[in-house]
Structures are given as C-alpha cells and as structure tokens.
C-alpha cells in the first residue's frame, strides 16, 4: 500500500488545542509524524522583558491554562529567588496546599481527556470534569477566581486562606478519596481500556532520558526523579513526599502515574493541613516599585502537573532582562514522533493524550 499523508489539525477533535500533525500513514501504521507548533505563540518571553516584575504573572499563568496556579507560583518563586525574599512558614504551607489542589485538578482533567482520546463517549471526561469543578470551587474560595488566579505575591499570597477553608479541603479530600477507586475500577477493569493502553507507545528508560521528557511521562518510564523530592522546595521535605514511579513506560503507566499522584497529593494536602502553622501568609502588595533584585541570574525548578518547569531569569532593576521558560509540554511533544511511529493510527491519538499536552505551554 502506498503512503498516505494526512493532515491532522489545527482543528481536530483530539488535538487538545491548536497543533497540526502531518502524519504519514501506511495502511493503518504510522510511518512519520511531523508536529507543526507555534499557532498559540504569544511571545511571553519577549513580553516579560517589557513588563515590570509583578505585571508578568497573568502572562505566565496563561501558558498552562489547565494548571495556572502552578505557573503563577513558579514565576513568583523565581522573582523571589532573584530578590532574596523569604516566604513565611505559613505561606509555604498554603502554597503547597494550593499547588497540590491544582495538581489534582489538572491530573483529573488529563485522565478524562485520555478516556476521550481512547474513543469514549465523554463519560470519563464528564466524571473528571465534575470532580475537577469541586477542586476549582476550593481554589476559588482561596483565590477569588476559578480559572486564572494571580494569587501569588512576593513572599506569600494575595490573601490568607479564608476561615473554614481547611475544613472544606478536608471534606473534599474525603470525597476525592472515595471517588478515585471508582475511576480505577471503571477504567482498569475494562478489557478494552487495558488492551488499548498496555504496551502502546512504549518509552524505555534510556529513551526517556535521551528525549528529555519530564514529569509523569518520565516517571512512568522508570526514572525516579521528582523535583519535590530531589530538589525540595517549600515544605515538601517535611511532608515525606515519595515520587510515584512505574517501569513500563507505556500509555497505561503514564495514566497510572497520574492516578497515583492524585492519591499522593491528597495525602500531602492532608498532612500539610495538619501541620499548617498560625501566622500571616500575606505577601508584599503590588506596588509601582518593587524591591530591587539581588541576584543577577536565578534558576528555579518546579514540578508542575505536566512536568518540570525551569525558569531562567536574568534580572534588571524593576523588570526582567530575560526570562527563559523551560516548558514541560514542549519537550514532551517533541517525543511524539518516537512514541507513535510504527504504531497504529488510532494509537497516535491516545499516545498524544497520554502526554497530556497544553498547547499554550508548548508555544509560549
């Protein structure tokens, strides 16, 4: 059979945003994939050079619109590192709680989308969406907004947690703990799900390192690295965090790592709330003039839901000289050709779903 070149996207039901894949197909086998990116390129790195320090969080947040709080925090932490600002004990705990809540929301969405990419009639997606909404309610309580928070300030947060927030979080965590086994039963007892995910899109440990993938994709391939454990920030070292690592490296392992991380996040939130100290979590208010940076170059690594983000900041007074963002999705997407080549055409989309891409983050 001759090779057929198919254009998938930029508008396609399962490309998770505007990405265009030029796929060469031989019968039902994928021969080559050429991802075309850049359709959501907003030049955030360049824009950052023209804005003052605390004008930038709204931009960085919109990179990963499925987990904005994480990017918000990663950027603010970079500026804090440049200005040598320490975060108060309580604010550290509050940030950990909010980040882990954001991680649960993001991973739920990823699992839901993954069901969709496997050709399900939106059932897993809707379940996940509903549960994600409950988490978003909590984040709204803390930050005042559902989607884009701009909640982090230098040295703390915009506002301290509202009263009763801890109780609400604990209630939600109890609910989530009941829901997770339902997802696991529903998905992992389905023979078609197992058949479509196990042994599909395999990424070995060596290839994972070579291709530079990060986050759940890296851990599903057996590399035991999580910034929260290996390079701990805030209070993660006190909360006895253990990364979830699987060896298989296939689509199922990537899904499973996310499921296990949700459970780990629930545990982290519980223990963080137990240890939450009294005090003030409020950070510096945004003023026309921010403190001057002390360090010229600061590098900050953060474990976002989709992988490791690294911000490289060259600081000028009042505004960044250069902000370079290492986006986890960018490098995960670069691995798609290796993952889906030689596989079935149908598996291309489930593999793409298992990478959990957000195109805003890829293009920056």
């Amino acid at each position: 059979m001759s090779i057929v070149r198919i254009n998938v996207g930029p508008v396609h039901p399962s490309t998770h945003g505007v990405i265009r894949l030029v796929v060469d197909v031989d019968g039902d086998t994928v021969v080559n994939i050429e991802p075309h990116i850049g359709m959501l390129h907003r030049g955030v790195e360049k824009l950052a050079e023209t804005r003052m320090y605390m004008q930038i969080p709204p931009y960085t947040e919109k990179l990963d619109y499925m987990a904005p709080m994480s990017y918000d925090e990663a950027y603010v932490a970079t500026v804090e590192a440049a200005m040598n600002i320490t975060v108060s004990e309580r604010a550290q705990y509050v940030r950990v709680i909010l980040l882990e809540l954001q991680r649960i929301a993001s991973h739920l969405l990823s699992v839901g989308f993954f069901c969709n990419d496997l050709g399900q009639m939106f059932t897993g997606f809707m379940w996940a969406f509903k549960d994600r909404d409950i988490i978003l309610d909590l984040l709204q309580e803390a930050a005042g907004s559902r989607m884009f928070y701009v909640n982090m300030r230098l040295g703390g947060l915009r506002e301290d947690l509202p009263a009763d927030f801890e109780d609400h979080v604990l209630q939600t965590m109890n609910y989530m703990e009941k829901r997770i086994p339902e997802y696991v039963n529903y998905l992992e007892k389905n023979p078609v799900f197992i058949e479509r995910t196990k042994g599909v899109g395999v990424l070995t440990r060596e290839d994972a390192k070579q291709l530079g993938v990060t986050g759940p994709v890296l851990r599903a391939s057996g590399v035991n690295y999580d910034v929260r454990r290996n390079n701990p920030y805030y209070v993660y070292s006190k909360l006895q965090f253990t990364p979830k690592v699987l060896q298989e490296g296939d689509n199922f392992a990537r899904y499973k790592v996310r499921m296990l991380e949700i459970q780990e996040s629930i545990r982290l939130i519980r223990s963080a709330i137990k240890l939450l100290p009294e005090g003030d979590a409020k950070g510096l208010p945004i003023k026309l003039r921010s403190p001057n940076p002390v360090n010229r170059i600061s590098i900050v690594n953060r474990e976002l839901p989709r992988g490791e983000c690294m911000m490289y900041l060259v600081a000028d007074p009042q505004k960044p000289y250069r902000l370079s963002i290492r986006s986890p999705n960018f490098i995960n997407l670069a691995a798609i050709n290796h993952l889906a080549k030689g596989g079935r055409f149908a598996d291309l989309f489930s593999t793409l779903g298992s990478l959990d891409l957000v195109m805003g983050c890829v293009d920056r």
Partner: protein
Amino acid sequence: MKIERENLMSTVSRMKSEGFDYLIKITAVDYADHIDAIYLLRNFESSKDEVIEVSLDPSDLWLPTVINIHKSADWYERELSEMFGIEIKGRHAPRLLLEKWDGTEFPLRKSFTWGAQYKTKDEIK
C-alpha cells in the same frame, strides 16, 4: 561553567559519560555585546544540575550541534536558531519550528522592538 565554543561538544559528551545524561534546556541571553548560549544538564543519580555557558560574538553567531549526544536538543536548537538567529552547524533542520516567520528578524534579540514599549519610571527619567 563558562567554556569556549570549540570545546562545547567534547564537554557535553564528557559530562554525559560522567552522569549528566539529561539535557534540561538550551537557551540564550542577548547581552547586546555578546550572546550567551546556555546549556543546562542534569545528573539524575546525584540530582545535580550543571549550567554551561558559551559566549558568542554577534558577528560570528554559530554553534555546533549537540543533537548526536542529546536527542532532546533537536527542538531547542531549532527554537534557538529561529529566536536568536544562531546558526546551528552540523545538523539538518527540515523547516521552521514555529511557523509564520520570515526568518529575517530574531524576536528574542534585544535589537528587536515593536510598537509601544512599556517603560519603567527610571527609564522615563
């Protein structure tokens, strides 16, 4: 760690054999009189990061490719050459990575400006 461009490939491959086998990112900073290309490498065993800086003269902008040592360098190098105009020698780039781009100006260079630029109080003075 600051190194010369000539030693880049040998340094990166030596570090790979020493355990720095994960390329986090290749990026660059335009300091007007010179451009710094920055390679960030990681050792998973000791969870240590290493920063390699290569200083480039704007009149002689090119870098040897490290794609044979780290496959993940592929997209980073392409992004670098589109955003900074640094020519990557020794590799084949099939097309522009970020599209709709004529390739005459390089957006992340400091010389690239557009429309209304926001100025801080100090700069206005």
